[in-house]
């Protein structure tokens, strides 16, 4: 049990009478990437919000480490779980460094500000994700991809073992998507961080797997996790047809140095 980062047991959630998910159970192991994929509106974000303590589940329980999050304060939870939002609205032109420093909020008392040690941690976080040279730039003037890296640096400065990312590549171009994925691989491999990630790109799971990162994939649909397992078990042509109603083809290549595995959508299934 010690190697479990998050345990979700029989969790259900509804907005008023509208049930979003019900009776969901899964475990996230320490040091793995746990990907959640599923169609729009299947409840991925709501599920993540519940783990983050932003929403309260109606029944069941969620344990982070060994602690039931129902009883934890935001500060304690933030020391264990950090968050990279799907979209971050940039309202004031803070400097990149100021934003990353906010990751230290849970360790800073209400009437004080981050000290030099916090600044050092923020600096290391920026270095880790490769945005140190942006430290003094107003973060309203950097690209969307760079902003997402700033969010990751902020989460990293929080020094929590778990980072939850909600569709972190949603608005990114080809290259920035890859930069982000490489950063995640880096964090899991070198900083031993557990990542829970909602994504619309099934192939992200294969990307992590072929990079030798322990990866679990959960397929969410109609408010339940229909399949959980390693990417190979979950992401096959059958399941994709069931959930997305599309025909697809699983392709793998041997590039000599590494394998590439991808599932490629082919056509929409016509109702028979």
């Amino acid at each position: 049990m010690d190697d479990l980062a998050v345990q979700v047991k029989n969790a259900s959630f509804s907005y008023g009478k509208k049930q979003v998910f019900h009776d969901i159970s899964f475990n996230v192991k320490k040091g793995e990437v746990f990907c959640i994929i599923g169609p729009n509106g299947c409840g991925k974000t709501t599920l993540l919000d519940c783990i983050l303590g932003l929403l309260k589940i109606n029944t069941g329980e969620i344990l982070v480490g060994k602690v039931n999050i129902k009883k934890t304060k935001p500060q304690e939870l933030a020391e264990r779980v950090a968050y990279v939002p799907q979209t971050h609205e940039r309202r004031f032109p803070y400097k990149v460094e100021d934003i990353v420093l906010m990751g230290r909020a849970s360790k800073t008392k209400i009437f004080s500000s981050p000290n030099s040690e916090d600044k050092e941690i923020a600096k290391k976080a920026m270095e880790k994700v490769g945005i140190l040279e942006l430290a003094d730039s107003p973060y309203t003037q950097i690209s969307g991809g760079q902003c997402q890296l700033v969010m990751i640096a902020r989460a990293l400065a929080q020094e929590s073992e778990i980072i939850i990312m909600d569709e972190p590549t949603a608005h990114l171009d080809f290259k920035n998507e890859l930069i982000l994925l490489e950063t995640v691989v880096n964090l899991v491999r070198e900083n031993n961080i557990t990542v829970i990630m909602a994504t619309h790109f099934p192939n992200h799971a294969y990307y992590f797997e072929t990079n030798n990162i322990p990866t679990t994939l959960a397929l969410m649909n109609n408010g339940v996790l229909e399949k959980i397992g390693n990417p190979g078990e979950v992401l096959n042509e059958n399941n994709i047809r069931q959930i997305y109603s599309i025909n697809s083809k699983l392709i793998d290549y041997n590039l000599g140095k590494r394998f590439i595995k991808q599932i490629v959508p082919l056509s929409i299934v016509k109702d028979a």
Partner: protein
Amino acid sequence: MIRKRILYILIFISPIVLILLTLFIGRYPISFSEIPKVLAYPFLKNKSSIQETHYTIIWSIRMPRAILAGLVGASLAVSGAAFQGLFFNPLVDSGMLGVSSGAGFGAALAILLFNRSSIYIYIFALFFGAVAVLLSYIIGRTYNTTPTIMLVLGGTVVSSIFSSLISLTKYVADPYEKLPAITFWLLGSFASVSRQDLIVGLPPMTIGILGLILIRWRINVLSMGDREAHTLGINSNLNKLIAIGFATLATAGAVCVSGTIGWIGLIIPHIGRMVAGNDNKKLIPISCILGASFLIIIDNIARTLTSGEIPIGILTSMLGGPFFIYLLKRTKGGSW
């Protein structure tokens, strides 16, 4: 870097310099050489001879007035800066949650029921200012989602309710005696301030200002929005409540001393941003100092420009209006 440092030093000593300068300015002629003597008088052992009128004018009129103007300016600017961060909206000011109109109604009611210079003005202004903010806060909490938008909406609704109550008070007031008193009070002025105002206004304003200065870094985190502030480890509802509490104290204290003075809570934080950037760690203290200096200057203009006093609320808006347009133009460019 050095130029910036000199600028900061100049800004930080400006209120003290301005308060001292204010002592030399006024309609009653006191010679320049006389003023240092009067200033030193209480601290000297062998008392030199000075006129009692001079002593009263410097120590009981000009000095408290300058200090109060500084405190009021600082209070309004600092709460404005805090609210802009809290509501992540650069266009809100210190009266956002209805504290100004609430306090205004309280004062108008007190003038209507009692007389012009009664202690009830303070009590009523503070009380109704706090009631207005509390109402806005309760409205903001009725929905579970996006409380920030609801707070802004609540503030707008409550402000307009109290504004109409002010109109009602004016309507029923005796047009020869009470109505002018209410109107002048609402225009804002330091004309009638005394040491007593200093004693009454000092505690809420200083507590409010100091509280906001202490909590200033948290305002950065709160400006990330409730979701992110929460995941960064902050109880955003509690922190917001504390910040709103301090801002209300500061603004209500200011309003009950000087009446409603507009624009400072909106303009000064933006001037502060041009000097110190958006980090509230620097912005809040800078706004505080700039607000103090700005209002001391405006008050000197108000009391010396014409033979009578110009209500200070008129002057701040007159200068504030054009500045606001300039500001909107600048924001459109997105450079700041």
